[in-house]
C-alpha cells in the first residue's frame, strides 16, 4: 500500500508538470497582446517595456520561458511560493493572496461538503428504504427545487431572510476562526447552506439509487438469509457498499468547487478563489486566472489521489497486493 501511494504520488507530480505545461501554453503562448503593456501603464517608453518584460520573463524563447516558469513555480520567486508573480491589474503579489484565499475557499467547500453529506446520506438512505413513499417523493421534489434554484438567488434569499429580515445570522463577509470562532460560524453558515443544498439533493438521489442497487445485490440477500437484523443489513452491508462510489464523486466535487464557488463567494462576500478567478477573468488578469487554474487542477490531482487511496481502503478489491 505504501508503495502504491508513493507511485500514485509520483504520478501526481508528473500530471502536475503536464498541467503546468498546458497552463503555460494557454496562458503564455496563446494569448495575443503583450502582458508587459498591460502592466507598464499608459505611454510606456521602450525602456520601461523592456524592463517589465525582463521582470515578467517575457523576453526569452518559449522553451526557456517555460523552464523559467517551472522554476518560479516550484522554487518560488521573490513574491513567495509558489512563484506566480504578481497580478497584472492590481500589482499585488499572487502567492500570499493565493494562500489566504485558498484557506477561505477550502473552509467554505469542506464545510459545505460535510453539510451536504450530513443531509444527503440519511435522506438518500431513508428514501431507498421506502422507495415511492411520501418521504421519498417529498425529498425528490424538494431536491429538484434546490437543484433548479439558481445559487445566487438562493443566496440572496437567505441573506434577505436570515440576515436583513430576521437578523438571526450575520450577513456577508468573513471572520477568521482564529479571531472569533462564533462569528466565523455565524458568517459561514449561510454560505455553507447555500452551497450545499443542491449538492445535498444530488447526493441524496445518488445515495438513494446506489442504496437501491445495493439492496438488490445477492450479498444483501445472503445477509437476510443469515437472519441478520435489518438495521445491521442497512448500515453494515448496504450503506457501506453504497458509499464507496460516493468517495470518488465527493473528491471530484470538492476539487471542482475549489475553483468554482464563484457565485456563493461573490454573494456572501467571501474573498476566496472563486471570486478571485472572476476578478481575474473580468480584468484579463492572467496571473490571477493562472494561479486559480493551477490550484484547481492540483486540487483535482491531489483529491483524486486521496479518493483512490480511500477507495482502496474501503474496497479491498482495488487494493494493490
Amino acid at each position, binding site marked *: 500500500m505504501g508503495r502504491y501511494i508513493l507511485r500514485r504520488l509520483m504520478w501526481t507530480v*508528473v500530471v502536475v508538470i503536464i498541467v503546468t505545461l498546458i497552463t503555460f501554453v494557454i496562458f503564455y503562448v496563446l494569448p495575443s497582446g503583450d502582458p508587459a503593456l498591460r502592466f507598464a501603464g499608459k505611454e510606456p517608453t521602450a525602456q520601461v517595456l523592456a524592463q517589465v518584460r525582463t521582470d515578467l520573463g517575457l523576453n526569452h524563447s518559449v522553451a526557456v520561458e517555460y523552464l523559467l516558469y517551472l522554476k518560479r513555480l516550484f522554487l518560488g520567486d521573490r513574491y513567495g511560493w509558489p512563484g506566480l508573480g504578481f497580478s497584472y491589474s492590481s500589482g499585488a503579489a499572487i502567492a500570499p493572496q493565493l494562500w489566504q484565499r485558498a484557506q477561505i475557499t477550502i473552509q467554505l467547500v469542506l464545510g459545505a461538503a460535510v453539510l451536504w453529506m450530513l443531509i444527503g446520506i440519511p435522506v438518500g438512505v431513508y428514501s431507498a428504504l421506502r422507495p415511492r413513499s411520501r418521504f421519498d417523493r417529498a425529498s425528490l421534489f424538494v431536491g429538484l427545487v434546490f437543484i433548479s434554484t439558481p445559487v445566487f438567488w438562493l443566496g440572496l434569499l437567505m441573506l434577505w431572510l436570515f440576515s436583513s429580515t430576521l437578523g438571526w445570522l450575520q450577513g456577508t463577509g468573513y471572520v477568521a476562526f482564529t479571531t472569533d470562532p462564533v462569528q466565523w460560524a455565524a458568517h459561514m453558515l449561510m454560505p455553507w447552506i447555500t452551497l450545499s443544498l443542491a449538492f445535498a439533493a444530488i447526493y441524496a438521489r445518488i445515495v438513494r439509487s446506489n442504496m437501491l442497487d445495493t439492496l438488490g445485490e445477492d450479498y444483501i440477500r445472503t445477509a437476510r438469509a443469515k437472519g441478520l437484523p435489518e438495521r445491521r443489513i442497512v448500515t453494515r452491508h448496504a450503506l457501506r457498499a453504497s458509499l464507496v462510489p460516493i468517495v470518488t464523486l465527493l473528491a471530484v466535487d470538492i476539487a471542482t468547487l475549489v475553483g468554482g464557488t464563484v457565485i456563493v463567494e461573490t454573494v456572501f462576500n467571501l474573498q476566496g478563489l472563486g471570486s478571485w478567478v472572476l476578478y481575474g477573468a473580468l480584468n484579463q488578469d492572467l496571473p490571477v486566472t493562472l494561479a486559480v487554474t493551477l490550484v484547481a487542477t492540483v486540487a483535482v490531482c491531489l483529491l483524486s489521489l486521496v479518493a483512490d487511496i480511500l477507495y482502496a481502503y474501503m474496497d479491498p478489491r482495488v487494493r494493490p497486493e
Partner: protein
Amino acid sequence: MIDGTRTRPLLEVQSLTKRFPLTRGVIFAHSRGAVHAVEDVTFTVARGRTLGIVGESGSGKSTTARMIARLIDPTSGTIAVDGTDITRLVGADLRTLRQQVQMVFQDAYGSLNPRQTAGQIVGAPLRVHHVPGDRRAHVAGLLERVGLNPEHAARYPHEFSGGQRQRIGIARALALSPTLMILDEPVSALDVSVQAHVLNLLTDLQDEHGITYVVISHDLGVIRHLADRVAVIYLGRIVELADAAAITAPRHPYTAALVSAAPAQPGTGTGTTRQRIVLTGDAPSAITLPTGCAFHARCPKARLISGDPHRVPERCRSERPPLGPDADGRQLACWYPLESGDDLIGAAQAMAIPVSGAQA
C-alpha cells in the same frame, strides 16, 4: 484435383506461448515475473474439422482462442491459417484475416451492442469490410440460416432469449463466410433445452460450409459432441491430445478426473451411484508454476505409483513430462499414464484425508 495447400491443415499452431508480465515500480515498471497463461502449445486442425480445447477456468484455453483470433498478441510461437503465418499480421492483412477467422463468445448478451438491432449487428461485418451486394437480403438470409425470423431484424438484443442471442452472434460470425470459427464456451450460458438447438446448428453449419472449428469449453460433454480431436489443457500446457472418441478412455490422470466429473449418460447402466475422481484443492497459481509435472500436487496416479497418498514420485516433481505420442497415436504428457485397473477414485479419496487428521 488435389491441391498442395488443400492437404495442409487449415490451422497450425506451433509453440504458442503467452505470458502476461506482472510489473511493479514507482515510475518505470520492471518485470516481477509473469502469468504463464499459455506455454508451448502446438496443434493442428484439418480443414472442416473441429478441435475441442477443454480445461478448468484459468487453464489458458480462452487465451489460446483469443490469440488465434489475433485479439491478443502471442509472446512467442506461430499461428498459421491456410498456410499463411498470421502471427504478426497488421493493417489490411489483419483485416483480411478477420474476415477469415471469426469468434463466437460465451456471453452473447455482453458481446452484442444493446443499441443496435439484430440486423445492424449481423450486417456490421459486411459494412466494415465493404462487402458488395444487397446487404439487407444478405442479413435476412443469415438470420434465417441460424433459425431466426428475418422479420425480427429490427429488434434489439434484449428482446431476444438467450439462445436467440447466441444465434445472432453466430449469424454475425457467419456473415463474412469465415473458414475458421473460434467458439469460446458457445453454449455454457444457455439453458439445457436450448443448448441442444445451438449445438445442432453449429454441427449443421460445419457440414454445409466446411468451416473449421476450434471449440473452447469446460464441459467435456459439449466438446465430445462437437469435436473430432480434443486437447486437454492444464495450467497453460496441453497434457493430452486425442481423438474425441478416445478421450472417454483417457490416459492422463487429469483427463480422467475431468471425464469422471462429466455428466454420465442417464437412463442407462446401473443408475445413479456414480463415482467421481474428486481432485484435491485448486489448480496451482499460474505465476509460480509447479516444478516438474504441473499436475503432480493433485495427481492420484502419482500416489498410486508412490504407494503413499501423501507422496509423489521424484520424477513427477522434478522433471516435466514432454508431450509426445503414445502407442495409439494420442499425444500425452505424463510419466505414468493410466493403466487399466488403476483405482484413481480410491487414490483421490485417500489424498483427501489429511496427514495428521488435525482438522475438526
